[in-house]
């Protein structure tokens, strides 16, 4: 069994939430929590090593029907993937671009990340998402439920029934056993069900009289605030990936003034130009607008060169990408709620568009002043796999290295970006902010992302010097999750079960009865079977509201 007490001594601690910046401190752990001091138990001598709070991924796609669809679509990726052989206490699996469930847990923990937010879950298949998450070991998880194309919600917003809409959203969150609300291409996914998109924020969504993407964004942001959810509305803006979308993104920020919101994978929304030939980075404009809006948080959605699978609820974008690449395409529309598209993709450094994307993600992280408001992500697996985060960390910390990399990219792209002019280098403390403290704060997970007394004992201990590739963060020496040593010397040593964070916002008692007839008209299953039973969410941890 796990030791109930543990001490980590002699390491340099980076705990920005508590103002600790590289001081040598001892960390004491009892019953999975960080405490002042302990007597006895195991001691890990971390002299010469650096200590971080366990990483927190604010936006990743690790489970659910869409990801599972992608798995089936790309067997060729698995043949080249890292293999996990089964062993006593450890299950088989495959890594790669869309790792299998067990492998996902081992890979995140092996990298030092201990909390992951699955960013897109329909209510209708939430039961399945939770089944998968249950099979993702070690790490703690949370989910966001897709809401910006749910026809019940859209109809109410169109009718101006915001009060009722709030109750419906609350009811749906609990039905899905979700932690927060995700809005993907508001109105656009719904329009895609007729093969259309929502390109203009202030024009009615196809099929509606007055409802615009702007009203959906405003409405959902208000509802999430009113419900007091720990995490604000998590928004995937309209026009993802399209040259010139900078205008949409900045306009979205205006719509959100005075509201909390998290803008997902900002890189994909920060392009200038008119078409693929003239596309350029608009990171400067976007970062400037973002810096002026302290109500917002965001994550990078950085791109790394190499294979990926793009996977998003943004169905129309995926159809466009399919037509551009001429490769495989999968699409799965979910009745009444959302859709999803999947297209395998290769980011090439010699491609103008891809090189601009690569630079834009880094530029945003370097141009946004406050590291607390921008988090490290690749929108896994869209921009690159989560297990490649250490590569981004190196790029952020080393301006010289960035300049070297710039020489490899399509020469034309160098005129479309500003990365070469940016000398900022992240400090270790900044890295602790963008990988753990910041995202934990944005998610409202008060026991995560720091090492103060009372925090969950999720601790990652890295060697004090970089490895041969100049990457400091690829292999932690130790990873503690809930006070247990789960990774030691690059090997998964103990496989624990993680928690699942959910919320239970209040909804009017009549909400179910209001929804039932609508549901029976729109859906093809029984209403009683719609909500996920709480018993099906293993390790559920219902979090308080504001």
């Amino acid at each position: 069994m796990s030791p109930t007490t543990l001490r980590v001594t002699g390491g340099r601690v980076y705990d920005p939430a508590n103002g600790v910046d590289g001081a040598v401190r001892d960390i004491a752990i009892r019953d999975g929590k960080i405490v002042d001091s302990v007597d006895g138990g195991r001691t890990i001598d971390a002299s010469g090593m650096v200590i971080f709070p366990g990483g927190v991924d604010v936006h990743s796609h690790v489970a659910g029907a869409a990801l599972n669809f992608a798995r089936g679509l790309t067997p060729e990726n698995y043949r080249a993937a890292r293999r996990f052989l089964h062993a006593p206490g450890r299950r088989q699996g495959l890594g790669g671009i869309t790792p299998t469930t067990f492998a996902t847990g081992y890979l995140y923990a092996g990298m030092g990340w201990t909390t992951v937010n699955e960013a897109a879950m329909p209510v209708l298949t939430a039961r399945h998402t939770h089944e998968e998450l249950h099979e993702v070991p070690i790490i703690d998880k949370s989910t966001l439920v897709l809401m910006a194309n749910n026809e019940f919600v859209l109809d109410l917003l169109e009718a101006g029934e915001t009060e009722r809409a709030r109750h419906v959203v609350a009811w749906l969150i609990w039905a899905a056993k979700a932690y927060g609300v995700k809005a993907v291409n508001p109105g656009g996914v719904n329009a895609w069900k007729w093969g259309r998109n929502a390109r203009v924020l202030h024009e009615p969504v196809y099929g509606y009289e007055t409802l615009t993407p702007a009203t959906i964004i405003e409405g959902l942001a208000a509802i999430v605030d009113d419900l007091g959810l720990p995490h604000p509305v998590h928004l995937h803006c309209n026009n993802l990936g399209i040259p010139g979308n900078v205008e949409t993104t900045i306009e979205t920020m205006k719509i959100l003034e005075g509201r909390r919101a998290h803008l997902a994978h900002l890189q994909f929304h920060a392009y200038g130009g008119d078409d693929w030939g003239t596309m350029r980075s608009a990171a400067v404009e976007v970062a400037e607008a973002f810096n002026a809006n302290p109500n917002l948080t965001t994550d990078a959605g950085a791109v790394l060169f190499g294979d990926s699978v793009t996977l998003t609820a943004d169905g129309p974008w995926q159809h466009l990408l399919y037509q551009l690449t001429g490769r495989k395409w999968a699409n799965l529309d979910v009745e009444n709620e959302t859709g999803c598209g999947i297209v395998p993709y290769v980011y090439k450094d010699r491609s103008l568009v891809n090189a601009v994307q690569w630079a834009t993600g880094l530029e945003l992280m370097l141009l946004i002043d406050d590291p607390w408001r921008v988090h490290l992500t690749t929108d896994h697996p869209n921009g690159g796999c989560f297990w490649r985060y250490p590569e981004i960390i190196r790029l952020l910390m080393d301006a010289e290295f960035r300049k070297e990399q710039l020489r490899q990219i399509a020469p034309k792209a160098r005129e479309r970006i500003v990365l070469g002019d940016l000398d900022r280098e992240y400090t270790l403390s900044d890295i602790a902010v963008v990988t753990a403290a910041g995202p934990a704060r944005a998610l409202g997970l008060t026991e995560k992302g720091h090492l103060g007394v009372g925090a969950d004992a999720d601790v990652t201990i890295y060697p004090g010097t970089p490895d041969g590739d100049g990457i400091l963060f690829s292999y932690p020496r130790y990873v503690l999750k809930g006070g247990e040593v789960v990774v030691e010397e690059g090997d998964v040593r103990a496989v624990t079960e993680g928690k699942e964070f959910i919320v239970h916002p209040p909804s009017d008692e009549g909400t179910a009865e209001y929804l039932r007839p609508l549901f029976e008209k729109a859906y093809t299953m029984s209403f009683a079977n719609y909500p996920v039973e709480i018993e099906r969410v293993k390790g559920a941890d219902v979090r308080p509201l504001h």
Partner: protein
Amino acid sequence: MGGKVSCTLGEVTNRADFIIFWGGNPAECHPRHFTKYSLTPKGRFVPDGRKGRTAVLVDIRETPSAKAADIFLQLRPSKDFEVLTTLRALIKDQRVDPAAVAETGLTLEQLQDLVDRMKKARFGAMFFGMGLSMTRGKHMNSGALLNLAAEMNAFTKFVCMPMRGHGNVTGADVVLRYTTGYPFGVNLSRGYPRYNPGEFSTVDLLVRGDNDAAFILGADPGATMPQPAIEHLASIPTIVLDPKVTHTSRLSRVHITTAVTGVSAPGTAYRMDEIPLPLAPALRSPYPTDEEVVRRIRRAVARRPAWQPVDENVRSAIA
């Protein structure tokens, strides 16, 4: 290169105004499909129900489902691939050879008419059955229809999905995908998942006699598989878990009677559109559930010394 463009069945109910059934006989094999999902129900954007939809049936014989269709296209056996490939060309305004088309049993005019109607549809849905996926061409026939549906999205909205067979086939497919990465035909004998349909799929393993034991759950290969496969099953230790005695039980060493899933055993079943449905048992059964039996076998096996896979990339001393 192809794609899989699908949706949940409610999307079809609410939106589809043009529906093609290919190589299937839902009227007899999926009796509630027409009435519950695809044809007769009124949908949000198809308020007239059946009147608001055009149904096409493509098959090699006039099954009872033909009566439910507005258009019945009868093609000659094993010509599905030829017809679908022709349709893929026609939607792109490419020329085809009328004489070769005629050999399928359908005329070029019939197919052009079908294409014109498909393009005029607001939301098209295609369903296919074993008449397509299990006849000459097999997975390539299904692939042809899936590709046609994907490519139709350049003109209008189209989706496509298989009418899956009995049992929780879709569920097995879903769970295998998230645990191993692959949907079927998975081999774990090296300690990690390997996949190769034709090599590791059950029928191929059995026909070649590659496996030395069989554990069969929720299937009756003894009724459907080719004779060499059946003979091999009979020659090795075969264990069957099933609520009733099946063809496979008769040739197995052990048959364990289990509770009927959904009737007296709980769980999750996946509908053909991959929606998970909770199963609430209505009755009690004197028999254990499949899950219980598997857990008990697993516990018993765990008492034996464990087999440890060796990483084949590590060139050990044995080599």
